[in-house]
């Protein structure tokens, strides 16, 4: 029996939803926003299902769409929205150093410009090199390297010392 477009799409959503949501929440840091972003992207996926279905790496194709949607969402709306994490960041946690460090890192991540954060996620979570990230985001490799450097600087992570083995 031949599957219809709707059947194929529904099957794809069922099999990839968890992975996409996890990628989305790492990208944006907010579970509920991740659900909105993934839902938006899945709507686009359905519109261009023939392209997606024909792609060599279907999952990578959709993740690329998600990363782009997240970044462009910021371009359009990011400057209009307040930083929701400021209160979290300014609170002084009465905890052990380990927890304080983790909270501080999480707060710094939330404050990153979204393209910087997307670059960090694509590099350190997805494992993509700068050239591949540039292709995913449709920007230049120099911009990716610049965002990597700035992002790690903002997180207070010494890139040159910690990432000496990275190509």
């Amino acid at each position, binding site marked *: 029996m031949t599957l219809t477009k709707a059947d194929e799409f529904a099957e794809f*959503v069922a099999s990839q939803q*968890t992975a996409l949501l996890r990628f989305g929440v790492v990208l944006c840091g907010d579970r509920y926003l991740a*659900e909105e972003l993934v839902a938006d992207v899945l709507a686009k996926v359905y519109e261009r299902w023939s392209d997606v279905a024909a792609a060599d790496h279907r999952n990578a194709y959709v993740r690329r769409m998600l990363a782009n949607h997240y970044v462009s969402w910021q371009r359009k709306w990011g400057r209009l929205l307040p930083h929701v994490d400021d209160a979290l*960041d300014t609170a002084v946690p009465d905890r052990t150093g380990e927890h304080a460090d983790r909270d501080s890192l999480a707060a710094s991540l939330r404050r990153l410009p979204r393209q910087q954060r997307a670059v960090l996620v694509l590099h*350190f979570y997805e494992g993509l090199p700068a050239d591949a990230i540039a292709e995913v*985001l449709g*920007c230049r490799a120099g911009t990716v390297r610049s965002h990597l*450097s*700035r992002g790690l600087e*903002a997180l207070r992570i010494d890139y040159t010392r910690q990432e000496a083995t990275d190509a």
Partner: protein
Amino acid sequence: MPDLRDLHNEFARLEQEIPEYYRSPVIAERMAQILDQPRRRAHTGRRPTIAMALLAAAAVVALAVAVVSISRRSGDHAPVGQNSTAIKSPPISNSPSTQGSPSQSTSTHSSSTPKANGAAMPQTGSELISYIQGAALVKVSDYEQGEPGPGQAMRPTPGIAEFNTPSGNITCAIVDIEPGGPADVQCEAQQASFHIPPKPASCQNDWAGYFGFIEQREVTVGACVGGPEFGPTTQVLPYGSAIRQAGIGCRSESGFLACADLSTGHGFAVNRDTLKTY
């Protein structure tokens, strides 16, 4: 101080916010709408026709606004720094530069005769180098200032020097973060009227046409961007001064800003009306 292991741990922690086999109600609702659309369309026979008519009317209005805007700007030769209501959307050029291609000779993108407010732009790459080297140098480290977090002091960003022109119209960054490699420079004009290349099909983000850069010794006009390219900077490169880092130099004057790879003479001069590449 956090390290990369902490970053990986944070990503793993975020991942776990989505339990295995979680089914999102938001996605379920959106899927139901998507998959229901064909049926709804079948029951609303005339609606697509009405929508298309409305779209056509909107397109006619937008075209009229664009024509009026372009004709107004055709007489606008205000110098850099003069406040203007010019919109950022440019007229489409018939002879655009190609994104990513090196500039082998000089090329001018201009909405008018390329006169830079009295001062002539250099004609050749070697003239461009001499011009930039003729200005007093500022201290690069003064321009390597990162964005402070809330309540934090400025933090230096070694290797990334950012500045605005005194008018505030042009923002640039000289990026030198690859040891031994050539530095890159990127500049964006907030308001400009020169012709720019059209958005390439490969660009899935926003097209920043008023964007010139030298990367890996090549000059390009236009950039595909997914977010702000520059950190907010208050540093100003005063008129009559130049900044130099890793073989890249930029000189600021009231007539135009010029940047070049000082070893090759490839670069650009830019103001509100003109972008000239070398």
